[in-house]
């Protein structure tokens, strides 16, 4: 397979097209504009729909409509724009409508700046909008992963009838590196080949496609009957529990490690470099890179806790994922944190220093 040079934002777009996404609505914002532009160019070529909406709330609401008639749908934005979409994301979670939302994070709070950051971890992994819901969250760390995780995100969204968030950042969105457009592999989701679903959305047995010859269906998030909302929420909770089957992570050189780094996305790239350099100095350090941020890969983190001297969580924020690491570890070993907020980058030298401190 020939390699090609591709920008992260565009790799997400191509992954979506290959997954059969034929409806994209979005509103421009740096640093994800190349994704919106890519969809504007590609959608007409595949007989899909591209809409530059009048606002972010309009974009997510358009996804609600397109998703309930069976389309594979996507929107993308960056942090402030994702905040504006939270009403629609909550509604889609409530109505159990699949969609894929790419958040190419920038610095916050407020309009912040346009530099890459990881300040939206809490928002992404705790639901983000109102109500007792979660969304699947995938965190790519390379252009290659931006392509194939996006492609898989559509299968996961359909499987769980849930919004799926791709949590990238400005660095991953803007950078170019070599990648391969691999042919679609077998679908992650049970229930068949995603290609057949692309051809025939009617294979989704819950969509609103005209009820001639069958009982009418309804899709809504307003559930007023006595006790029925509580039951609905409990069923959603079961679904979130079931999502734990999808947990994935990358573990690098953890077998003999005495200190383990935990990082995702751009921070994980920096940690890999730090880890390789530290290994050359003879330091026994490994890396766990969560790829699903929700559900969080807590088992692997718990398993290794009793035998190591400590974890070091590295993030481009002031400490968000570190709370999930601490929950997973449950006090079985020390959990340290090193973070740079809103446009700062963790430094390899400082990571190595901190590893040395942990190893004593």
């Amino acid at each position: 397979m020939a390699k090609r040079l591709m920008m992260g934002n565009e790799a997400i777009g191509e992954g979506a097209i290959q997954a059969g996404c034929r409806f994209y609505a979005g509103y421009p914002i740096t640093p994800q504009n190349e994704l919106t532009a890519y969809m504007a160019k590609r959608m007409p070529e595949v007989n899909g729909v591209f809409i530059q909406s009048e606002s972010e709330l309009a974009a997510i609401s358009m996804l609600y409509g397109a998703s309930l008639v069976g389309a594979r749908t996507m929107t993308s934005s960056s942090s402030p724009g994702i905040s504006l979409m939270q009403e629609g994301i909550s509604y889609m979670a409530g109505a159990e409508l699949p969609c894929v939302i790419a958040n190419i994070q920038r610095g916050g709070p407020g309009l912040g700046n346009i530099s890459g950051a990881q300040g939206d971890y809490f928002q992404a992994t705790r639901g983000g909008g109102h109500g007792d819901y979660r969304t699947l969250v995938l965190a790519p760390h390379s252009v290659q992963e931006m392509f194939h995780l996006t492609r898989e995100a559509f299968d996961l969204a359909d499987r769980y009838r849930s919004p799926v968030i791709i949590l990238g950042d400005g660095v991953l969105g803007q950078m170019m590196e070599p990648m391969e457009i691999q042919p679609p592999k077998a679908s992650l989701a049970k229930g068949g080949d995603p290609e057949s679903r692309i051809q025939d959305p009617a294979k989704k047995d819950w969509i609103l496609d005209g009820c001639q010859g069958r009982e009418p269906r309804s899709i809504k998030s307003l559930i007023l009957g006595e006790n029925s909302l509580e039951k609905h929420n409990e069923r959603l909770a079961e679904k979130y529990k079931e999502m734990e089957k999808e947990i994935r992570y990358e573990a690098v050189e953890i077998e003999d490690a005495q200190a383990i780094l935990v990082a995702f996305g751009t921070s994980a790239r920096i940690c890999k470099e730090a880890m390789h350099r530290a290994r050359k100095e003879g330091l026994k350090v490994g890396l766990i890179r969560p790829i699903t941020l929700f559900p969080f890969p807590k088992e692997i983190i718990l398993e290794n806790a009793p035998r190591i001297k400590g974890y070091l969580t590295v993030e481009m924020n002031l400490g968000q994922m570190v709370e999930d690491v601490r929950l997973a570890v449950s006090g079985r070993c020390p959990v340290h944190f090193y973070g740079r907020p809103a446009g700062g980058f963790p430094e390899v030298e400082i990571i190595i220093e901190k590893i040395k401190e942990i190893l004593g």
Partner: protein
Amino acid sequence: MREEIVIAGFGGQGIMFAGTLLAQGAMEEDLQVTFFPSYGAEMRGGTANCNLIISDEEIGSPVVINSSAALMLNQPSLDKFEKRMKGKGLLIINSSLVDREVERKDLEIIKIPATEMAERLGNVKVANMIALGAYLKKSRIISLESVIKSLPKVLGERKRDLLEVNQKALREGGGLIK
């Protein structure tokens, strides 16, 4: 092997093009490479820059803090990036648009009248290729031929008519280095 490069100049000088071309060439030589542009807040006519990392090992952050090489196509770029270079770094300067001397004493400096040479080739916009050609010959990070081979792909069909002048500029730039 690891090289961290900053290419900078005015918007319109082909800074992103030169960076993309170098990245494509590195990929053709099966090296690891990342390209990271300055984005968003830049204006037309303002300054533009891009970061490249070329390595035989997996690359972490694509953002260059201290560069081991710099191609500075105008003076504001030199003002900004000279102090951020690593010691013994290779600094290529477009002397057509830079009036001052370099302050650092610990750098390897090559001055090239790239804009004037490009004008003589009939297209002022290929000053970037002259600087890149010189850089490639001097650094030997990848071969000039790999970059020339990558040109058609990066230029695309629409700009096929500019292929020849870009090739010529790369070779002229390379020819300045003995």
